[in-house]
């Protein structure tokens, strides 16, 4: 060390100053304090100098020195670069309007449709979850019957709820709900309505579920048996703006009910929905007073008529509760040995079947997957187009690199570019959703709203948009930022092999998805077609029906009157609606029935005209004759004969309830429920007092006058009641409304997915044709024909589409096979469906590609060679 040179000042304070003090002041400040340090050294010695040095440095800690001077030159700080990125991105977007348009359209449509589907999925998944105690509420169900007749019932006997509350410690509360068919015509002053959606319920409905009573006492919603609780809408219907509480509704002109509460309308995503609620004690009173048998509410273990919901203690074992309930049931009715209890969680009710197997959840999953597929396709479009066009931007990338851009900065640049495009697309997509929502609601039968205050909506949207953004921005950004500037500037980056291969994989994926969707569309369409056209086993064309009420007593006169009308081809009556039989009973006996065996049958009371009226085929035996002796005769369907294992059934004994008799005929199986279900046992019996549904067959072209005549006749006997009839065809269609909707939505989504794929392919083809302009020119000059050029350009794409088909077929087959398992009666999947789907995919691809290819092939070589 040079002894002449004074020791330098301490290092650390200098570093601090260097970091703190603004750059334009650093030099002189440091210089001055160093000089002062040197002076102090001379005067006071090193130790003192060092001590004061620290003090002096710390005195510079004031804003005046720290504050940086605004520079007149741009500093390459984060925000400045982002501004530059956005500017570059915007220029790029506007410069290549064609590709921007393709990208934007694809992304916008993809996002809009994807989000619409996800909204639907979300609404389906939200069913019954809004109750605070949803996780502790279970629906009580029964397994009943043995062997092929074993089935699940979602209704239980009434007393089990009371016993469950009293004797099973895990059960905190129970709610019974039962459909009200006995009080239907409600009147307030001049307002008269026939109410179809009314239920009897336990008062515990309100504490257990989160249905909010706006007026009334939740602890005692029904003060007595003549109390009624209305929903807000219903109350408005009767009372307008008057206060409904305490008002009296007269019902069926016999009794009257006093409004004791108003409940907020049941949410759309609730499985339990009603317009009017009546106390269940009223139902019990009607049912169990003045009976000639000894049945009471406490001992009637054979009337399965109540939806029972149990509120369990958290963490209670479901199976143990079910076991205990079964024990209770058997202790009251020992011969129900084939009966067992099970509990279904409330939130599963909507999407799973009663036995816990997949129900609607299949559709939800299917649509969820479709949404993801559509979003994937849209992302693939973006990725493909931007990587393919990356070459054109290699020069920009190279220049940036040479000037000093780090790879991470370039990565950031392309990320920002994608984000910009995405935010534009998102805005457009939101607008599109807003416009499409009414149409979409109509098709899907939902009432979705774009509530921008809903946090769940934002979760779905945020995740979707972020997900797609990440999926479509990372790869292009990585690729583009990876160019080596020297090679790129020399024009040597003709896309590495792996990039091309990757792009091919993406195109194949896109088209595989399209082929799967096309095949799915075909198969769903065919299945729906099949359901609607399948031989039902009865003829329902031009038949309308209604419940007769007081007209029933004068049936013979009405019938004679109607048959005199021109245009009426036939009249008959029965106890139920043939399109969808509801009542079921296990109270059957026959020769050869085993101990503990139960066969559930759908009993239908009919008259002698019924079988010929519906053109049902009697397999064996004879029809009812209209004689009094018919009341001891039964006609079984084939399914019943098979389930009961009766050989030569005609003449054998059969017992339904307390009705003993013989089998006189066997009717060929007919569909009295949705095709999802197998045909189950049904029994026709004869009981004139129960035949309250009338069926009128018209000749088809004269339905209007027939309806008018029927209404006149109705008014004659039921002056007070509105005439409500339904055509069986329409009712039948309603059975498959869900399927129809699924089918329509699937078609729609599939078309959109295919459209987006084509858009991407179109962009790629345009690009390929553009890049190869000069090659095509040279080829043409050397004698290539237009056909050869088209072939050259289309070949690559077609090969990819064929690979896609090969991959798609097994997947499509498997998924559609799974879907068809939902139906008891279904079509076979035929190979030609896939052939057709593939052909269609090739056709669409060819059409998309050839437009550009032909354009390129027709171009004048002189022109194309002159470019650049």
């Amino acid at each position, binding site marked *: 060390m040079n002894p002449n040179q004074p020791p330098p000042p301490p290092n650390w304070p200098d570093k601090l100053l260097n970091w703190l003090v603004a750059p334009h002041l650093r030099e*002189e*400040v440091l*210089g*001055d304090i*160093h000089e*002062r340090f*040197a002076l102090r050294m001379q005067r006071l010695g090193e130790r003192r100098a060092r001590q004061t040095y620290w*003090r002096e440095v710390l005195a510079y800690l004031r804003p*005046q*020195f720290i504050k940086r001077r605004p520079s007149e030159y741009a500093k390459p700080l984060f925000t400045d670069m982002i501004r530059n990125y956005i500017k570059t991105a915007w220029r790029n977007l506007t410069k290549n309007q064609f590709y921007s348009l393709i990208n934007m359209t694809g992304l916008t449509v993809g996002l809009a449709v994807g989000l619409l589907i996800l909204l639907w999925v979300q609404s389906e998944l939200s069913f019954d979850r809004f109750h605070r105690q949803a996780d502790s509420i279970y629906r009580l169900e029964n397994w009943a019957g043995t062997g092929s007749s074993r089935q699940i019932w979602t209704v239980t006997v009434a007393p089990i709820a009371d016993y469950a509350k009293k004797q099973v410690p895990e059960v905190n509360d129970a709610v019974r709900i039962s459909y009200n068919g006995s009080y239907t015509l409600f009147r307030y002053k001049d307002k008269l309505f026939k109410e179809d959606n009314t239920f009897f319920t336990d008062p515990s409905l309100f504490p257990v579920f989160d249905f909010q009573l706006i007026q009334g006492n939740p602890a005692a919603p029904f003060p007595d048996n003549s109390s009624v609780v209305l929903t807000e809408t219903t109350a408005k219907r009767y009372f307008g703006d008057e206060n409904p509480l305490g008002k009296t509704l007269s019902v069926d002109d016999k009794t009257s009910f006093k409004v004791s509460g108003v409940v907020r309308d049941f949410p759309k995503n609730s499985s339990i929905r009603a317009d009017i609620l009546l106390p269940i004690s009223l139902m019990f009173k009607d049912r169990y007073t003045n009976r000639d048998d000894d049945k009471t509410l406490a001992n009637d273990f054979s009337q399965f008529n109540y939806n029972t919901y149990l509120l369990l203690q958290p963490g209670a074992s479901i199976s143990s509760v079910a076991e205990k309930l079964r024990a209770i049931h058997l202790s009251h009715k020992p011969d129900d040995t084939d009966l067992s209890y099970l509990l279904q969680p409330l939130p599963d009710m909507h999407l799973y079947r009663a036995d816990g197997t997949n129900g609607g959840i299949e559709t939800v999953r299917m649509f969820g997957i479709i949404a993801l597929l559509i979003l994937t396709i849209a992302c693939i479009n973006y990725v493909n187009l931007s990587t393919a066009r990356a070459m054109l931007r290699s020069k920009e990338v190279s220049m940036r690199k040479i000037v000093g851009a780090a790879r991470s900065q370039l990565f950031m640049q392309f990320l920002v570019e994608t984000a910009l495009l995405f935010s534009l697309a998102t805005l457009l997509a939101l607008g599109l959703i807003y416009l499409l929502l009414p149409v979409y609601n109509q098709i899907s039968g939902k009432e979705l709203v774009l509530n921008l205050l809903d946090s769940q909506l934002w979760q779905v949207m945020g995740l979707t948009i972020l997900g797609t953004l990440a999926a479509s921005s990372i790869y292009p950004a990585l690729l583009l930022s990876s160019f080596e500037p020297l090679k790129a500037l020399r024009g040597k980056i003709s896309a590495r092999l792996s990039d091309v291969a990757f792009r091919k994989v993406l195109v194949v994926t896109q088209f595989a998805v399209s082929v799967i969707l096309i095949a799915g569309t075909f198969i769903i369409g065919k299945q729906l077609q099949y359901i609607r056209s399948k031989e039902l086993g009865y003829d329902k064309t031009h038949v309308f029906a209604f419940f007769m009420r007081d007209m029933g007593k004068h049936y013979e006169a009405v019938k004679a009157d109607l048959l005199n009308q021109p245009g009426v081809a036939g009249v008959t009556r029965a106890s139920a609606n043939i399109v969808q039989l509801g009542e079921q009973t296990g109270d059957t006996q026959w020769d050869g029935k085993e101990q503990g065996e139960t066969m559930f049958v759908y009993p239908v009371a009919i008259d002698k005209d019924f079988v010929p009226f519906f053109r049902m085929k009697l397999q064996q035996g004879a029809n009812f004759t209209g004689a009094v002796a018919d009341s001891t005769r039964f006609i079984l369907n084939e399914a019943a004969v098979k389930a009961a294992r009766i050989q030569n059934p005609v003449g054998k004994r059969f017992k339904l309830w307390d009705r003993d008799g013989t089998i006189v005929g066997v009717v060929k199986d007919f569909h009295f429920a949705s095709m999802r279900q197998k045909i189950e046992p049904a029994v026709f019996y004869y009981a004139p007092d129960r035949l309250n549904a009338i069926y009128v067959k018209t000749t088809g072209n004269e339905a209007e006058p027939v309806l008018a005549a029927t209404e006149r006749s109705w008014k004659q006997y039921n002056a007070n009641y509105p005439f409500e009839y339904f055509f069986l065809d329409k009712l039948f269609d309603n059975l498959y409304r869900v399927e129809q909707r699924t089918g329509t939505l699937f078609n729609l989504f599939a078309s959109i997915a295919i459209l987006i794929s084509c858009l991407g392919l179109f962009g790629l083809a345009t690009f390929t044709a553009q890049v190869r302009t000069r090659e095509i020119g040279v080829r043409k000059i050397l004698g290539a024909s237009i056909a050869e050029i088209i072939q050259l350009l289309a070949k690559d794409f077609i090969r990819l589409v064929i690979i896609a088909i090969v991959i798609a077929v097994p997947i499509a087959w498997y998924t559609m096979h799974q879907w068809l398992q939902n139906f008891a009666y279904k079509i076979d999947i035929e190979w030609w469906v896939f052939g057709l789907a593939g052909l269609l995919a090739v056709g669409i691809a060819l059409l998309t590609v050839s437009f550009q290819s032909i354009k390129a092939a027709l171009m004048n070589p002189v022109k194309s060679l002159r470019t650049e």
Partner: protein
Amino acid sequence: MKRTFLGEFEEVVLLVVAACTEDAYGVIIWEQLQEQTGRSITISAVHATLYRLEEKGYLSSQMGGATAERGGRRKRFFTVTALGSRALLEIQEMRQRLWQAIPQGKLQLIGQ
């Protein structure tokens, strides 16, 4: 004319810069200040005031004169601008007027 308020310390610093016979820069100004006022002043306070005066337009500066003690760093030399001189003169004039306005004998009374 826009008058900029000149604080007491600022005024002293400005006067010191004006009075300097050699080139005025941080350390010299600081030493002069210590000497003239007898106060103990940190150099950062001097720097801060100098920059503030420069911002106000009373001082101008230029860089130069690196030495070994400074680790080869240059000094910032300050000179009083025309605006600065006028400000000083104005202050002096004002004080002069006030001094002359003091009635005879009053100062002694106050002084007691």
